[in-house]
C-alpha cells in the first residue's frame, strides 16, 4: 500500500542522519487509507478518501533530541530538513533519558489487528451499511424525522519502524466504524442521540439495524428533559459516560505528569486510590483491541499492565524516557503519529468488569443516572471534577424523568474511593472503556 520508494527513502534518510552527526536515529513511517461515507435522509452527503503517507524522524546527539516530520519525500528536501534539525538539536538540553530502544522482541502471537475483509470493503458497501442503519432509525418511531447523519468508514494503516539498532519492523491494522445520529422531535424540542460502534474486524461490528435502534433510544430518552434541583445524591455513570470519564482521568496515570508533580496520583504508588471494586488495566496486547499494537511509537514492546489492582495503585504508564527516569521497565505507552513525538497515552485502557449492572440502579432510592458527559471536566492536577451531564432521574430504584442542564462535581480522590458498584457491561467500542459505575455521592448542580 505505501509508495514503496517511501519506505526505502525513510531508511535512507535515517542512515544519512547517522552519517551527518546523529549518534542515534529513528524513523517512523505511517501510511494509511481512510474511506468514509456520510449519509443523510438516504442521500450520500460526503464521500471522502484520504491516502496519507508521512515520515517522522528523531535524531539524538550527545543525549540531545531533535525531531522532524514531513510528507514531502523529495530527496533534496529531506536532506535539507535533516541538516536543519541536527543543527537545531544542538540547542536542546542534554538529558540522560534521551536514548533510543536497543532491541525489540515483537510478540509472535497474532494479535488480530488486521482484517482482510475490512480492506476489501468498497464505498458502495459502506453506503449500504449506513443506509440500513438510517432506515432502521426511521422505522423505530414517528418522532424520528431526520438524522444529523450516519457515518460509515474504514481505515487501513501500516507502520514502518526502524532505528540505529532495530531493523525495520512493520504491522498493518484495520478499523471499521458505523455511527448514527438521529434527531428526535417533539413539540418545539429537538434532541439528538448518537451510537457508534468501532471494531478491528468487520465480523465484530454490530449489525447496522442495531446501531440505528440504539441511537434512536438515546435520542428519544432525551426528549422532555429538564434540570433537577441541586442535591448530594448517588450518581451512576452508564458505561459510555464512564468511559469518557476514564479518558479524562488518564493523564493522572502518566509517569511524566507524576514526575513533574502534575498528577493527583504522584507519590501514591502502593496506596488505595479507588474502592476495592475497581481494577484498571492498560493492555496493548489484547486480541482485536482498538488500541492494540505490536510495538509502540518508539519501538517498545506492548504489555498488559494492571494500573490499579482492586483499588491499589500499582503502576504508572511510561514512555521509554520516563521508564528510564524512574528505573522501571517501559510499559509500551509511547503513543504517536508520524507528526508527533511519542507521548504517554492509552493502548486499551479500561476499568475491569464487575458483577451486575441492573442492580446498581435498583439499589438507589434517589439519585442520578448519567448517560452523557459534555465538555471538559476532569482536572488531574488539582483533583477537581465538574462536568455538564444529562441522563435520567432515579426514584426508588427506577429511572423516571429525563434530566439535562445540570452538572455533577466532586473531588476525584473521594469519588474514586467512593465507587460502590461496578457493572458487568464492559464493551470495547473504543480503546478507552468502562462498565457502568456508581459513585456513592456527588454534587448535582441544578436549576433554580
Amino acid at each position, binding site marked *: 500500500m505505501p509508495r514503496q520508494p517511501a519506505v526505502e527513502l525513510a531508511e535512507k534518510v535515517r542512515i544519512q542522519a547517522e552519517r551527518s552527526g546523529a549518534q542515534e536515529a529513528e524513523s517512523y513511517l505511517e501510511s494509511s487509507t481512510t474511506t468514509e461515507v456520510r449519509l443523510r435522509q438516504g442521500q*450520500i452527503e460526503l464521500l471522502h478518501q484520504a491516502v*496519507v503517507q508521512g515520515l517522522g524522524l528523531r535524531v539524538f546527539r550527545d543525549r540531545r533530541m*531533535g525531531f522532524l516530520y514531513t*510528507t514531502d519525500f523529495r530527496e533534496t528536501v529531506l536532506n535539507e530538513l535533516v541538516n536543519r534539525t541536527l543543527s*537545531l538539536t544542538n540547542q536542546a538540553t542534554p538529558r540522560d533519558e534521551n536514548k533510543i530502544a536497543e532491541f525489540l522482541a515483537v510478540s509472535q502471537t497474532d494479535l488480530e489487528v488486521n482484517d482482510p475483509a475490512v480492506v476489501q470493503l468498497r464505498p458502495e458497501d459502506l453506503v449500504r451499511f449506513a443506509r440500513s442503519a438510517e432506515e432502521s432509525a426511521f422505522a423505530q418511531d414517528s418522532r424520528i424525522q431526520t438524522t444529523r447523519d450516519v457515518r460509515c468508514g474504514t481505515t487501513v494503516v501500516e507502520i514502518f519502524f526502524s532505528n540505529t539498532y532495530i531493523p525495520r519492523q512493520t504491522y498493518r491494522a484495520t478499523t471499521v466504524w458505523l455511527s448514527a445520529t438521529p434527531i428526535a422531535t417533539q413539540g418545539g424540542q*429537538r434532541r439528538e442521540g448518537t451510537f457508534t460502534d468501532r471494531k478491528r474486524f468487520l465480523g465484530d461490528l454490530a449489525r447496522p439495524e442495531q446501531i440505528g435502534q440504539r441511537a434512536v433510544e438515546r435520542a428519544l430518552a432525551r426528549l422532555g428533559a429538564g434540570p433537577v434541583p441541586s442535591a448530594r445524591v448517588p450518581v451512576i455513570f452508564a458505561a459510555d459516560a464512564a468511559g469518557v470519564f476514564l479518558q479524562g482521568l488518564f493523564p493522572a496515570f502518566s509517569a511524566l505528569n507524576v514526575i513533574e508533580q502534575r498528577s493527583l496520583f504522584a507519590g501514591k504508588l502502593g496506596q488505595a486510590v479507588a474502592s476495592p471494586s475497581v481494577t484498571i488495566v492498560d493492555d496493548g496486547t489484547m486480541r482485536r483491541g482498538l488500541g492494540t499494537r505490536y510495538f509502540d511509537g518508539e519501538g517498545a514492546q506492548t504489555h498488559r499492565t494492571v494500573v490499579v489492582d482492586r483499588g491499589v495503585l500499582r503502576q504508572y504508564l511510561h514512555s521509554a524516557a520516563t521508564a528510564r527516569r524512574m528505573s522501571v521497565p517501559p510499559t509500551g505507552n509511547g503513543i504517536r503519529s508520524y507528526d508527533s513525538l511519542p507521548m504517554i497515552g492509552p493502548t486499551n485502557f479500561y476499568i475491569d468488569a464487575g458483577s451486575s449492572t441492573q442492580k446498581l440502579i435498583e439499589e438507589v432510592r434517589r439519585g442520578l443516572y448519567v448517560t452523557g458527559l459534555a465538555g471538559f471536566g476532569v482536572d488531574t492536577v*488539582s483533583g477537581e471534577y465538574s462536568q455538564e451531564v444529562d441522563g435520567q432521574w432515579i426514584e426508588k430504584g427506577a429511572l423516571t424523568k429525563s434530566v439535562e442542564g445540570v452538572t455533577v462535581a466532586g473531588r476525584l480522590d473521594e469519588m474514586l474511593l467512593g465507587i460502590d458498584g461496578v457493572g458487568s457491561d464492559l464493551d470495547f467500542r473504543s480503546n478507552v472503556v468502562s462498565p457502568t459505575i456508581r459513585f456513592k455521592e456527588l454534587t448535582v448542580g441544578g*436549576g433554580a
Partner: protein
Amino acid sequence: MGIGQELRDVLNEETVNRILQEALARGGDFADVFAEQRFRTAIVLDAGKIDSVTYGYPRGAGVRVFRRNQTGYAFSDELVFSSIMDAARVASSVVETQGRKNPIDVTRRNHAPPFTLVNPEPLMIEASKLDVLQRMDAAARAADPRIVSVRIEYVDEVRDVLVGTSDGVYVIDRQYLTSVSCVPAAQSGGKRGSGLATLGGRVEADYFTRVSPEDAARRAGLQAARLLDAGPAPAGAMPVVVAPGWGGVLIHESLGHGLEGDGVRRGSSLLSGLAGTRVASPLLSVVDDGRWPNGRGSSTVDDEGTPTQRTVAVDAGVLSSYLLDKQNAALLGLRSTGNGRRMSYRNWPIPRMTNTYIDKGTSDPVSLLSGITKGFYASELGGGSVETTSGNFNFAVREGYWIENGKLTRPVRGAVLVGNSLETMQRIEGIGNDLRVDTTRGTCGKDGQSVPVGVGQPTVRFSSITVGGPSI
C-alpha cells in the same frame, strides 16, 4: 522566492483549469483545489530544560467536488500534478450526473490583507525563541516558592495556501501564526493547582519586546499558587459575571456554533429558520471578524478563496447573519461570508468561526457587580463545548470568585458552567464598555478539524447561569 512559489510551480492557472475540468467531468455544481505547505517549528521546555525541538514540513493538495448537498473529497500528500489529478477523479465519483461542458478559466485575484506584518515572528532566529522560553520559566518559578514544575510550549508556523475554484478564483496567501503556552504547577500540603498563560497570534517579531513574557509567566505562577488556597466553587443557578477577553469562549459555544451554516442548512441547529428574529437580549450584538488585527482566526481569504469580512451575526438581539461557506450559502440561497475554513489540505472546508466576540456595551464594568447579593464571578475561563441541536452548552472556569453584596470576595477553584443558548442569551443584564479580543489561545475543534480562532467580550452579567461546583 515568492509567496507560494513552490505551490505555483505545480498549480499554475493552466494546470488548475485542467484539474478542475477533470473534477467536474462527471458533473457537479462546483469544484476547488486547495494546496498547502507549512513550515512549523516547535520547542518544548519542561523542568527547566529544552525537552525537544521539532521541525514539521507537511504539504499536499486536495480536490473537492460538490453537487447541491453532496460532497466528494480526496487529497494527495504528494504535490505532483498526476497525483492531484487522481484526487480529482476520486472526488468526482460522488456525482452521478451528466458531464459538464463549460470550460473553466481561473484568474489570479489579489485581495487586501486585513493587516500587514513587516517582519513576522516565525522569522525570528531560533536562539531568541529559546531565550524567551528560558525567561518565562525563570519568571514563573520566581512567582511563588510553591511552584514545583513549569512546562512551556512554543509553536510557530508559516502556511502558504493556494486556492483555485471552478467559479474562477485563483488566490495565493501566506499566513503566519505563533503561540506560546506556559503551565506552572504549584503544590503544597497535598494540594495541587496549575496556572496558564498564553502569548502570540499573527504577530511581528518584535512582539516579545512589546509584551512582557516574564509578566505573563509570573501571572500564571501566581494563579497556580492562588488556586492552592481557593475554596470549592458553589453549585446551582445564580447570577454570574464573566470577565472580558477570553471569556468570549462563552459566546463562541453558546451562539457561535449554532450560527454556522452547515447545521442551519440541515435544520439541525436550534438557530435554523430564526434569521431576522429576536434570539437574545437587545443588549447583545455578536460579531465574527476574520480581519481582526493579529487575531488567530484572521486571514486575507478563507480556505475557499473568499475574502474575509466583518460579519454582524446578532444585531441588538436580532439574528442578522449566519456564518457561511460556499456550499451551505448556495443551499440557503445566500452568499459566503468568508467562513469556509479547513484544518489542512487533508480536510474539506466547513463553516467555522474566525474571531468571534460580543460587541462592547455601555456599562462601567465595576457597576455590573452591584446589586448582586450572592453570585459567581468567572475570572479565567477554560474550554467549552455545545450541542447545536439542543443548544445545551458548557464552558469551564479555571478560576473564579464569590460575589457577595456587590463585591468580589473569596477566590474559588474551577467549575463548569452550563446553560441553554437561547435561555442564557435572554438573561444578559448588562454589558461592559471594556471589550477585549483574545488573540493568543483559541483552538476550536469541530468534526475532527481543529482551527485557530479568536474570541472576545467585554465584562458581561447574566441574571442566572447554573454553576457546577461541589459546594451546595
